[in-house]
């Protein structure tokens, strides 16, 4: 796709002026890194603060008397457990028990929910979700192009964002949010993220994106805030062993195989789309599951590398990368459950060489509380 055909977030120009190296990401022109480079960006987020444009993510409002019932039927987690101002991680399952997408569900009120979905799957998700609507009394609105989303992440994220808002941030619990104002702009301030650090995701009107972005960069300059590109976003989430759709999750991957049993509420009232298929898989037992590994020889396993136990091909790498903070070469992979235990020795085919690796516990990185 030529660069002119790519979709742009409201911060496209801002990224270019910061030296962003723009790439095609699921049809979006996004910065893969800025002039500091991925390692510096990654480290800054771990040690101080990083700023991410995630405006390419999709937002879908679900409103009406049956909002909770509807979203409960089309997602795996139990929406009835959410209270106002709370969000949770969930999966949009298909009939076969695979994943159309993974998403966040925000509860604004008993009749108002917000679904935040992946950028590259927004159109697919919208088509899927609207097609699932039966006689439920709900209104669906695709607000993806109306909203920007900026993530400020890292140990100093709270103090920097606090300088721009009168909303008390520290009482907002993890996976909770408030409607507030940031730099005078109406915003949803959500204590969520995709980095393994404390931090916030701020949603606001798309035409306020540049103002918020520049004010956050200015407010964080004393703490060395850096804009972070997609490359750092990926290595940060990988160290935290968070799933990435298209890698650990997909249309033909069960949430059980992706270690998402904890958000797959098979017993919830009314069930959900694909519930029976997932129940069946649970009974028969999964034959592969996502596990973490560390390389034990020099070399970096990348996505798609085949995994061997002895001469037998037993699995495949779903995400593999150097881990800038841990200074190891790590990855996530599909392995048979009996080979997915910490300490298991495996070999990974890296361009024709079978290199030693070991299954390790995940997450690879956990921040100190």
């Amino acid at each position, binding site marked *: 796709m030529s660069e002119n055909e790519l979709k742009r977030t409201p911060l496209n120009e801002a990224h270019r002026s910061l030296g962003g*190296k723009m790439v095609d990401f699921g049809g979006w022109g996004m910065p*893969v*890194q800025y002039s500091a*480079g*991925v*390692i510096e960006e990654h480290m800054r987020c771990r040690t101080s603060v990083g700023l991410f444009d995630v405006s390419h993510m999709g937002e879908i409002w679900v409103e009406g008397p049956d909002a909770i019932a509807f979203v409960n039927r089309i997602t795996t987690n139990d929406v009835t457990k959410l209270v106002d101002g709370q969000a949770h991680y969930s999966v949009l399952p298909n009939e076969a028990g695979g994943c159309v997408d993974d998403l966040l569900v925000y509860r604004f009120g008993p009749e108002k929910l917000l679904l935040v979905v992946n950028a590259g799957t927004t159109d697919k998700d919208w088509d899927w979700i609207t097609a699932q609507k039966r006689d439920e009394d709900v209104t669906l609105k695709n607000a993806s192009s109306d909203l920007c989303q900026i993530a400020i992440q890292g140990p100093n994220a709270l103090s920097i964002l606090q300088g721009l808002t009168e909303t008390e941030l520290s009482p907002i619990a993890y996976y909770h949010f408030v409607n507030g104002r940031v730099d005078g702009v109406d915003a949803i301030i959500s204590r969520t993220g995709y980095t393994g650090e404390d931090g916030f995701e701020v949603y606001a009107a798309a035409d306020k994106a540049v103002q918020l972005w520049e004010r956050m960069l200015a407010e964080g300059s004393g703490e060395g805030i850096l804009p972070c590109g997609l*490359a750092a976003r990926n*290595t940060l989430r990988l160290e935290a062993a968070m799933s990435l759709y298209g890698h650990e999750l997909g249309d033909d991957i069960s949430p059980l195989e992706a270690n998402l049993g904890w958000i797959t509420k098979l017993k919830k009232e009314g069930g959900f789309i694909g519930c029976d298929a997932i129940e069946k898989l649970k009974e028969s037992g999964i034959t592969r599951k996502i596990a973490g590994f560390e390389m034990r020889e*020099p*070399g*970096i396993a*990348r996505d798609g590398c085949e995994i061997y136990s002895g001469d037998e091909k037993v699995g495949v790498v779903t995400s593999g*990368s*150097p881990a*800038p903070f841990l200074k190891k*070469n790590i990855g996530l992979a599909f392995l048979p459950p009996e080979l997915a235990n910490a300490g298991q020795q495996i070999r990974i085919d890296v*361009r024709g060489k079978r290199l030693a690796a070991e299954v390790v516990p995940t997450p690879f990185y956990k921040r100190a509380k």
Partner: protein
Amino acid sequence: MSNIPENLRYSKDHEWIAVDGDVATIGITDYAQHSLGDVVYVDLPRVGDKFGTHESFGSVESVKAVSEIFTPLGGEVTEVNDGLNDAPESVNNDPYEAGWMIKMKMENAGEADALLSAAEYEEYLKASE
């Protein structure tokens, strides 16, 4: 703009070659390191390995991707830069000095004359932008 030292030769695969008698020192250019991003691992051949022209002799890995590196000319490896094991970032910080990769005894020293001059490489970069 990329740094392209005058005294070196260049390949269209973005390697630089310093010729000294029948020995060629090979690394990747400033343009190449910049395109790759942060280099985290360099896989190099062993001393004594022989390569023809334009054969893969190793790879450079950045956080995001792996790129093969090709011999700009044929010959036998006489030295490899072991310093890159501990400091692969030298390829980014100092591509023309500390970031050198291998030295080769050229099979045919005439091959070096066919490589690009600094001015030609600069033209090549402009044309491919």
